[in-house]
C-alpha cells in the first residue's frame, strides 16, 4: 500500500469524514462545557512516523491522551489529545472544582477526562457511522499522560506493518475569545484494511 499515491479526491473524502465527525464532537463538547466550541477544517496528513510526533509538539512533549480502539467494519485508532493545561481547564469547567488536576494522581480527574472523552469521541464516531453507514464502535477510553512519541506509536502498530507512513485525519477544536482556552486534537488513524471500506462507502474508487 502506498499512501503517498492517494488522489486529491480521495483526500477530500477523508477530510470530509473528519469534518463530519469533528463537527458533531465540537457540538457535544460545547454542551459539556457550556461554551461555544469552534473547530478548524480537518487536515488529512500523510506523514512519516517522526513527522507524526511533530504534529503534536515533538516526541518528548507531555500530552494527555485518551485512546479508543475502534471496532466494527472500519477498525482504527482514535486519539483525543489535550495538553496538561487544556486537560486541567476542561476538568475545572466540567466539575467547577478548581482543585482537581491531572498533575496529581487523582482518580476523579482521570474519570472526568475519560467520561468527557467518551462523550466527545462517541459523537465523533456516531456522525461518521451515520454518514458512511459503516459501524464503528469505540472501546472504553484508555488514558495515558506521557511523552507524545510513546503514546502515538501505539496507534501506528497496525499501519506500520504495511507502510512507512500513517494517514491521520486531524481535527482541532478550540474555544474562541476566552482566556481559558480549551483545545482538543482529534487524531483518527484508520487501520490499513479500513481504507477500502471507507472509500467504498462514499463511492470513491480505491486502488492504492
Amino acid at each position, binding site marked *: 500500500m502506498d499512501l503517498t499515491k492517494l488522489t486529491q479526491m480521495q483526500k477530500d473524502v477523508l477530510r470530509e469524514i473528519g469534518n463530519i465527525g469533528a463537527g458533531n464532537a465540537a457540538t457535544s463538547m460545547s454542551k459539556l462545557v457550556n461554551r461555544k466550541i469552534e473547530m478548524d477544517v480537518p487536515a488529512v496528513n500523510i506523514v512519516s512516523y*517522526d513527522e507524526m510526533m511533530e504534529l503534536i509538539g515533538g516526541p*518528548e512533549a507531555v500530552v494527555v491522551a485518551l485512546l479508543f*480502539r475502534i471496532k466494527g467494519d472500519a477498525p482504527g485508532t482514535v486519539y483525543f489529545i489535550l495538553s496538561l493545561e487544556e486537560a486541567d481547564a476542561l476538568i475545572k469547567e466540567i466539575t467547577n472544582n478548581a482543585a482537581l488536576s491531572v498533575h496529581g494522581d487523582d482518580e476523579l480527574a482521570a474519570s472526568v477526562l475519560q467520561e468527557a472523552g467518551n462523550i466527545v469521541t462517541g459523537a465523533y464516531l456516531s456522525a461518521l457511522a451515520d454518514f458512511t453507514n459503516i459501524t464503528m464502535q469505540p472501546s472504553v477510553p*484508555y488514558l495515558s499522560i*506521557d511523552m507524545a512519541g510513546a503514546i502515538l506509536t501505539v496507534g501506528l502498530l497496525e499501519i506500520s*506493518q*504495511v507502510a512507512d507512513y500513517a494517514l491521520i485525519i486531524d481535527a482541532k477544536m478550540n474555544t474562541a475569545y476566552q482566556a481559558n482556552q480549551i483545545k482538543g486534537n482529534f487524531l483518527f488513524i484508520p487501520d490499513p484494511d479500513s481504507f477500502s471500506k471507507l472509500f467504498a462507502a462514499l463511492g470513491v474508487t480505491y486502488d492504492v
Partner: protein
Amino acid sequence: MMSKLVSSSTVVKVGIADLNVTKAPNKIRTSGLGSCVGAVIYDERKQVAGLAHVLLPDSKLARQDNFNRYKYADTAIPILVDQLVDLGARRNLLKAKVAGGAQMFQFSSGTDLMRIGPRNVEAVLKKLKQLSIPVLASDVGGHAGRTIEFDIQTSQLKIRTVNKGEAFI
C-alpha cells in the same frame, strides 16, 4: 564564543524505526520510546556506539515489499552491528544496553499487538544473544515513556521518564 571542545561534540538523534552510529565524544539519543525498544550497541575501547529504535519485533510481520529494515528487531540489529564494524568496532567485543518496551495503555483485552512492548524486548534480546553480544544493563517494561541518551565516553545510558526524572544504567 563556544569552545572548540564543546562544539565538536554533538548529540546524534535517532528517529522512530531508525538507527545510527557515531564516535566519541558524540552522544547518541532517541526520544519518546513507548512500546518501542532502544538498543544501544557499543565497543567501549574503540569509543564507537550505535542505537536502533525498533518499532516491531519481527520482519515476518511485514506486509509490504520494500519494507524499512530498521523497523524490525530481527533486521535492524544485524545492520546496526555491520555499521559499527564499518566504523571501527570489533564484532566480538561489542556490548549492549537496552531500554523501552513499555505498555503505555492498560488494555483490558486485545490482540497480540497490544502487548507489543514485551515482544519487542524479547526479540531484541534474542537477536543480541544470537550474535553473542552481552547485555550489560537494561531498563525495560513498565508503563512509562522513555527518552534515552548514550554517552560513548562513559558507556552510561541516561534514561529520562516524565514522572521519575533521570537515571543512569
